[in-house]
Every structure is written in structure tokens, then in C-alpha cells.
């Protein structure tokens, strides 16, 4: 048998230089397309459900209450007087501030009452103003006491501020009239 002239063997190779390019592109695609959507909104805790026959009425002094009423036309009334929505904050802030040093059973209660025909948007705008005024009072209080804003405080200090400025919002059920 004749011996064939063999060529010297070369190692077979897969070109891997472009591999990193491909994976980089994939990486970029995922980086760009992922939207980490954080849910933002106004948090609220509802009161427990009590059947109507067991409900009790508790008298609250007028001075402790800030009654917000939004009627079906979208007019907002604070303690019976018509008020523009952006002005609610400035109206509530001094009232919250004046009660910082009072014991917890004398703090301000903000009652938000709507009509069944009120638009949800108006309700959120009003609630937003109430929340905003509480947040600003908290921030100012913690700035004066700790030199930091409320969100930058540690957990213990936050609870101190929270005790001083608790957010008490009462969502009154709308009256059944008008349905």
C-alpha cells in the first residue's frame, strides 16, 4: 500500500471572538426592554367593617375635626366653606401644626366625605392635598428636631415623628341620597 502524503493536522476551531458581541447585544436588549415599573399611589387603611346595627356614634369636638366635603359638582367645602383644591394644603397645615404637642386623642382628624356622584379624580386630588399637608408638616417637624427630612430619618426617629404627627384620615361613607 502506498503511504499517502498526509497534510499536517490543524486543530479545528470555532471562532469565538464575536460571541461576546452577540451576548452583549442580548444583554443590552434586556437592559433596555425591562421596565421596572414601581407602583405609586396614595396609601390608605380602611376601617374595619362593622354592621350598621353595631355602629356607635362618637362625638368629636368641632375643633378637632377638619371636615372636607366634595359635592357632586366637584366643589370642595372645608368646614362648610367653599375652598379651591390647591388651597386645602395651606389651610390644613397650621391646624395640624398647632396639635403636634397635644396627646394622641386630641390630634386633628381630617374627614373626607364625598357624594356618590363625585368624580374619583376630585376625590384623589383632595386626598392628595391632605396627604401633602401631613407630609410637609412631618418634614418640617423632623427638620427642626433632627435636621433631616422625614424619609432620611432612621426607623426609631421616624416612629417618634409619626407619633407626633399621625395621619388620621376618616373616609366617611357617602349618603345614599341621590343614587
Amino acid at each position, binding site marked *: 500500500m502506498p503511504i499517502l502524503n498526509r497534510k499536517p493536522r490543524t486543530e479545528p476551531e470555532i471562532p469565538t471572538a464575536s460571541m461576546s458581541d452577540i*451576548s452583549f447585544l442580548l444583554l443590552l436588549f*434586556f437592559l433596555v426592554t425591562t421596565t421596572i415599573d414601581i407602583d405609586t399611589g396614595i396609601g390608605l387603611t380602611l376601617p374595619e367593617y362593622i354592621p350598621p346595627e353595631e355602629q356607635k356614634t362618637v362625638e368629636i369636638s368641632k375643633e378637632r375635626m377638619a371636615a372636607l366635603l366634595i359635592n357632586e359638582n366637584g366643589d370642595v367645602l372645608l368646614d362648610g366653606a367653599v375652598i379651591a383644591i390647591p388651597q386645602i394644603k395651606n389651610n390644613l397645615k397650621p391646624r395640624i401644626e398647632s396639635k403636634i404637642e397635644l396627646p394622641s386623642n386630641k390630634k386633628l382628624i381630617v374627614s373626607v366625605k364625598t357624594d356618590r356622584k363625585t368624580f374619583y379624580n376630585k376625590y384623589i386630588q383632595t386626598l392628595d392635598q391632605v396627604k401633602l399637608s401631613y407630609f410637609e408638616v412631618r418634614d418640617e417637624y423632623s427638620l427642626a428636631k433632627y435636621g433631616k427630612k422625614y424619609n432620611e430619618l432612621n426607623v426609631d426617629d421616624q416612629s417618634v415623628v409619626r407619633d407626633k404627627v399621625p395621619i388620621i384620615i376618616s373616609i366617611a361613607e357617602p349618603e345614599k341620597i341621590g343614587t
Partner: protein
Amino acid sequence: MKFQKKRAQSKANIPTASMSDIVFILLLFFMVTTTLREQEVFVKYSLPEAKAVEKVENKRLISYLWVGNDKRIQLNDAIVKLEEVQSIMYGKRQLLPNVIVSMRVDKNVDMGMVTDIQQELRKAYCLRINYSASVKI
């Protein structure tokens, strides 16, 4: 005097073989950590805007409730009737005791609807709610 530069004997190579491994691990990390839990929303809604919004800290606790501009209610992944909200949320609450209900209500819905839903949620003891709102700048 001779100032001759010494030529480097071999070519300087950066080893790029492991580059793809590194990038692949990064890629895997991102693929694993991104949760694509897209829920199909059957109702049309536009959220109200608000300034005093907070971030909801724990996404796993959230149940979503939509109310569309045609007053249909969608709870998590199905359209439900108002009367069904209580029983569904009661079952949900037994799995997740501190469930937060994120309410995504269209801004032109009237408050009667919202109050009715809230009453149902109160009966189901789902007391933590969140009115979803987009951030007003």
C-alpha cells in the same frame, strides 16, 4: 551609542475567551431577576395624578383591582362582578394575610362605585389599599 528599542518578542494579547462567559452570566442575571408578570388588562382606564404618592414597598403583597371607564371591575386577571369581590378577596387574604389592594380606578368613575368596592373590601377584611396614581410633576 545605540538607542535601539527592544521589540517585544510576542504579540500582546488580552485573553478574550472568558469575556463571553462573563457577559453571559450578566445576561442570565438580568433574565432571571426581571419578572415579566404582565397581566392582561381588559378595561380601559386613565389614572388620576397626585403629588403625595408613595412607593408600594412589597410587590408580592399586591392584588390589583381595576375599574374601567365603563365601570367594569377587573380583579387580578378576570372581570368580576361587584358582589364577587368580597369572596375572592377573602380567599386571597387567607393566603396573604397582609395583602395590599392596589386600586387602579379610572379618573372619571364616580365615587359611588369606589365606595361600594371599598365596602366589599372592608367586609373581606382587606383593609390596606392603595389608590394608584401617576406622579404629577
